[in-house]
């Protein structure tokens, strides 16, 4: 308890040290070390702290200092699990930033980046550890504020400023919802401490429902659920890449933390049917987010926007898991509820890891090619092989193919969806079957998205000079990515680590796995419903490979390999212009899901002379897709603004009218009082 408390102080100290020292080494050449090495140490200590908390008891201390609000720190398994995620990601990102932030060295205010970076991480950790509405909100907003400043870090570009503004406003809207929900709870419990929320006792159901809806909307805004996701692609795309890695891999999880805390800590989900619709709502929202997110990721051309939309998709998958767990719990199917919960938490962990990895890779690409548009890239795997390998690992992980970690969590999610037939309600089963259909479609489209991303940007010929003379990034950036890539592999093959971690963190009623027993689910008839044993799969794959290799050598004997041009139908060597582009690659799918994009394909012909329409000078083909959600938001905003505009017109500038207002106010109040409306 005590030494872990010192650890807490140490973590705080290191991040503040990083913030301050990076501020005071402004303009120096080595300022990156002053900024990011403390951050790395602090994140590492955070990992250690969370592991300690897993094994020993929770940390719960109250620092009262003669004020209205006491500062309470409470670190239980739930908190430490998320601290672990944040620590892991920020550790990798800090190391990555040692080289990456040199990108901004020509800007003199570079050290602000380091300071805000440290503040951002520590505010995230403080949000998780604080156990009091007031301080929770303070750190929550501090997190939003620092991340906002990081988003508009390159604020000379008016565009970044705009997207940052959208981010700030949306996240503040979310905060307003969270605040309202907490205050509803407070009105019942009469104290600002979360402890009072925990043992709030019997409160009317409608209060629970209202508070839940508000909290879900609030945290969902931060998590980027559809249709509140509008800010997310803009913000992630505008921020520097190490920051977008942090935002997507760390601060997004805080929203999930909030919802988990809310569902399973402030409310004890029991088998009362009124939690059922919570679960269903979460599932529905999750499915929609997953599908919409991946659909828009599919047609994007900006790497970071693609990754941002895929974050929305993964949040959707996580929410499907959470919702299922709530539904199962509300039918008192404990083991299934545990399964679904483990699935969603595992996916949270995995998403943090591979999304951090992918964003860092995107940063590397931007670092060495100075473009984020995948149409300009190509052939990078020969220019920057290590980055390419990491990106491939991230890709395989995120589309959930064996043998990496993404497969495990999606396997678990699918299994919990398949177990739906144990629910004693037909309507529910069928609807959840639809949800699983959506999920499967999402996975397929995600695969398409990332195949496109990897194939277009890393394979085939370089499409522009930017890509042609790219070089491999410095070693710190590689190291940062390598950490996450390796943990992708480890969690994929030794899945028992992740599962045991979650089981102990949330102390679920489930016996931890031993390394050599299969991850198996037993149906209610006692037969093995499903089982998985990744290490053996690896062994099989490897032995098959070896034997095939030998076989081919024996049968094939000695043969030579000679390099030559790609077959060009005899037209002379192919140019990079004849390759498939990202747009054309996704075109068939964009035609199938046309309602989301309203794709437009316009062909403009230029003739040598208007009289003769046969000789064409050139033909321009323009293929464009639209985003229906942004159009919806534009409509909404324009309506509400027109209302506001009418209200403010009362400031007419005529003094007579102003006096008239006073008289009207007086008389109406007198009338109201006289007729007893008020008082």
């Amino acid at each position, binding site marked *: 308890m005590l030494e872990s408390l010192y650890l807490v102080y140490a973590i705080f100290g290191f991040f503040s040290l990083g913030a301050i020292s990076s501020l005071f080494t402004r303009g120096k050449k080595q300022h990156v070390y002053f900024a990011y090495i403390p951050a790395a140490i602090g994140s590492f200590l955070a990992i250690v702290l969370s592991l300690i908390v897993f094994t020993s008891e929770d940390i719960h201390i109250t620092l009262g*200092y*003669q*004020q*209205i*609000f006491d500062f309470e720190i409470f670190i239980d398994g739930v908190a430490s699990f998320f601290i672990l995620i944040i620590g892991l990601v920020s550790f990798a990102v800090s190391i990555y930033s040692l080289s990456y932030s040199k990108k901004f060295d020509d800007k003199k205010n570079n050290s602000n980046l380091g300071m805000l970076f440290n503040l951002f991480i520590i505010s995230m950790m403080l949000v998780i550890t604080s156990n009091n509405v*007031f*301080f929770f*909100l*303070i750190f929550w*907003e*501090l997190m939003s*504020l620092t991340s906002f400043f990081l988003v*508009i870090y390159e*604020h*000379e570009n*008016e565009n970044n*400023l705009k997207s*940052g*503004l959208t981010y*700030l*406003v949306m996240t*503040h*809207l979310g905060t*307003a919802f969270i*605040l*309202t929900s907490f*205050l*509803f709870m*407070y*009105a019942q419990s*009469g104290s*600002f401490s979360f402890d009072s929320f925990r043992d709030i006792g019997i409160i009317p159901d409608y209060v629970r429902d209202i508070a839940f809806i508000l909290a879900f909307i609030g945290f969902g805004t931060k998590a980027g659920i559809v249709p509140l996701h509008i800010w997310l692609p803009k913000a992630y795309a505008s921020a520097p890449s190490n920051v977008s890695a942090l935002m997507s891999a760390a601060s997004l999880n805080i929203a999930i933390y909030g919802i988990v805390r809310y569902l399973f800590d402030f409310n004890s989900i029991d088998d009362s049917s009124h939690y059922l619709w919570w679960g269903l709502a979460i599932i529905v929202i999750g499915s929609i987010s997953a599908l919409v997110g991946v659909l828009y990721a599919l047609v994007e051309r900006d790497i970071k926007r693609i990754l941002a939309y895929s974050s929305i998709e993964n949040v959707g998958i996580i929410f499907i898991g959470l919702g299922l767990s709530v539904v199962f719990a509300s039918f008192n199917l404990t083991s299934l509820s545990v399964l679904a919960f483990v699935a969603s938490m595992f996916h949270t962990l995995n998403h943090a890891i591979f999304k951090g990895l992918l964003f860092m890779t995107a940063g590397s690409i931007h670092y060495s090619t100075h473009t984020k548009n995948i149409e300009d890239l190509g052939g990078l795997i020969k220019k920057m092989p290590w980055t390419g390998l990491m990106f491939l690992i991230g890709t395989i992980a995120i589309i959930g193919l064996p043998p990496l970690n993404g497969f495990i969590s999606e396997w678990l999610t699918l299994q919990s969806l398949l177990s739906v037939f144990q629910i004693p309600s037909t309507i529910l089963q069928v609807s959840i079957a639809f949800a699983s259909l959506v999920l499967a479609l999402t996975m397929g489209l995600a695969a398409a998205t990332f195949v496109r991303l990897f194939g277009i940007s890393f394979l085939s010929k370089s499409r522009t000079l930017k890509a042609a003379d790219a070089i491999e990034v410095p070693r710190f950036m590689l190291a940062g990515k390598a950490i996450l890539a390796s943990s992708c592999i480890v969690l994929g093959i030794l899945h028992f680590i992740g599962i045991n971690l979650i089981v102990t963190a949330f102390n679920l009623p489930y016996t931890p796995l031993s390394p050599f027993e299969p991850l198996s689910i037993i149906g209610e008839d006692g037969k093995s419903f499903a089982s998985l044993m990744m290490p053996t799969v690896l062994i099989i794959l490897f032995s098959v490979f070896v034997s095939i290799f030998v076989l081919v050598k024996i049968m094939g004997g000695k043969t030579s390999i000679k390099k030559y041009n790609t077959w060009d139908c005899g037209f002379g060597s192919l140019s990079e212009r004849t390759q498939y582009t990202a747009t054309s690659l996704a075109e068939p799918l964009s035609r199938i899901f046309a309602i989301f994009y309203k794709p437009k394909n316009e062909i403009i012909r230029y003739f040598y002379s208007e009289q003769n329409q046969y000789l064409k000078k050139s033909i321009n083909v323009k293929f464009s897709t639209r985003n229906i959600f942004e159009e919806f938001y534009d409509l909404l905003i324009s309506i509400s*603004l027109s209302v*506001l*505009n009418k*209200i*403010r017109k*009362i*400031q007419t500038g005529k*003094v007579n009218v*102003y*006096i008239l*207002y*006073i008289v*009207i*106010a*007086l008389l109406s*109040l*007198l009338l109201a*009082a006289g007729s007893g409306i*008020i*008082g």
Partner: protein
Amino acid sequence: MFSELFSSLESLLILALILTPIISGLLVTFLKRKKIIEAVTVFSSFLILIEGLVLINSILEYKTISVFNGIFYVDSLSGIIIITISLVGFLSSLYSVNYMGRQYDKLIIDESKLVRYYQGFNMFLFTMLLVPISNNMGIMWIAIEATTLVSVLLIMLYVKQSSIEASWKYLLIATVGLSLALFGTIFFYYVNTIDDPLGGDASGMNWTNLVENASGFDPNLVKLAFIFIIVGFGTKAGLAPMHTWLPDAHSEAPSPISALLSGVLLNCAFYGILRFHIITSNSIGSHFSNTLLIILGIVSIGIAAASIYFQKDLKRMLAFSSVEHMGIISVAIGFGSVIGIFGALLHIINHAVVKSLLFFASGSISQKYGTKLISDTRGIIQTMPITGFVFLIGGLAIIGMPPFNIFMSEFLILSSGFESENFVPSMLVILFLVIIFAGFGKHLLRMVFGSPIQSMKKEDLGILSIIPMLVLVAIIFVMGAYVPEPLQTLIEDSSQILLSGDIHN
């Protein structure tokens, strides 16, 4: 009466408090040298600050002080107003040296105008200080009316069409409003002295006396009177829909004066409402006046939200945000639970601090850029780093961003709204706050960041313009999560007074 025992020291203090500005005003009138009058004013306002703090100290000691057989009466509630007046007064006198100095160098004003400015400044301080210490509601009314006249003189300093227009509107509307307030005051006096129509005894108009007898008042007349009071003083306190003069006046005044008008004068007017609110609650229960306060407050916040979003002029935007914050305060008082009133009184101080910071900053900005238009002001953080920084901090604070002070008071206020189960008003307030956040934030960030339109050289406007702002920024940061114990006790006492109008605790 225990107050007689201490009347020696405290009476001196109070006397000094109101004599200092008068004397310095006279000095300014006689010795007309620029440097000297500046020094005199700064010194006197510093003196006022010291006296104010000492007075607060003794208030903390003896809760209520009543001297000169009850003409002057001071308790914790007045203490809060006195703090804001003396603090903001001192800082804005400091800031005036730089600001008016610049105007003087640019030949916008000549020496006589400067003298008039400093006379007005001192008189303004005097009239405002008279409000919280006077026990007699009539004198308080006279003082408030006097603040109007003096500030009109200060706004008239420049002979511009806009300033003439603003001062005329201000004079007319404020006077009409205050005449309503006087109506209400006379009504209260009447209901107080209805049993013994003794002509000419002023004590019947003393707040202490009114509170004593409040329980016996005729309910209908009290309601009528309070409506007149709230509409009247509400006009001066900038509650919608009587706020219409406020954006004009506050945006046309010289920036130090705008700081005083927004940060302090509004509080003085609201103080009048508070006093009568206490009487009304004691007489007919707090429900009636709470309802009125909530209604007017909500309307103010809503109208301010709408106007801020589309605002083109920087100082007008700040003025509307003052309307918003007065609305928040009145809603908070209306919620009427302990933490709500605590939050409201805290909010009075916080708003004074932040708003004066913003007006100082906007003064420097408009002087640097030569315009008050938001659309022409870009990239402040590049052209004047320190001012840009403090402006950013102030702006973030005023829209209720943690970890700055206003967030705390607003949080307290909203939670009191939910505690007292005024769900709909509280949610409306939250909604409007979000709109204001969007609007104000948009303008703020566009101005602070981005790249300036025409290239100008990168420097702030002199140390004297920076120091007051830095002081205020320090206060904003410190009070973000920490309220000093003396202040806490002061606020707790005054919320005690507001809740249960007992004056002897």
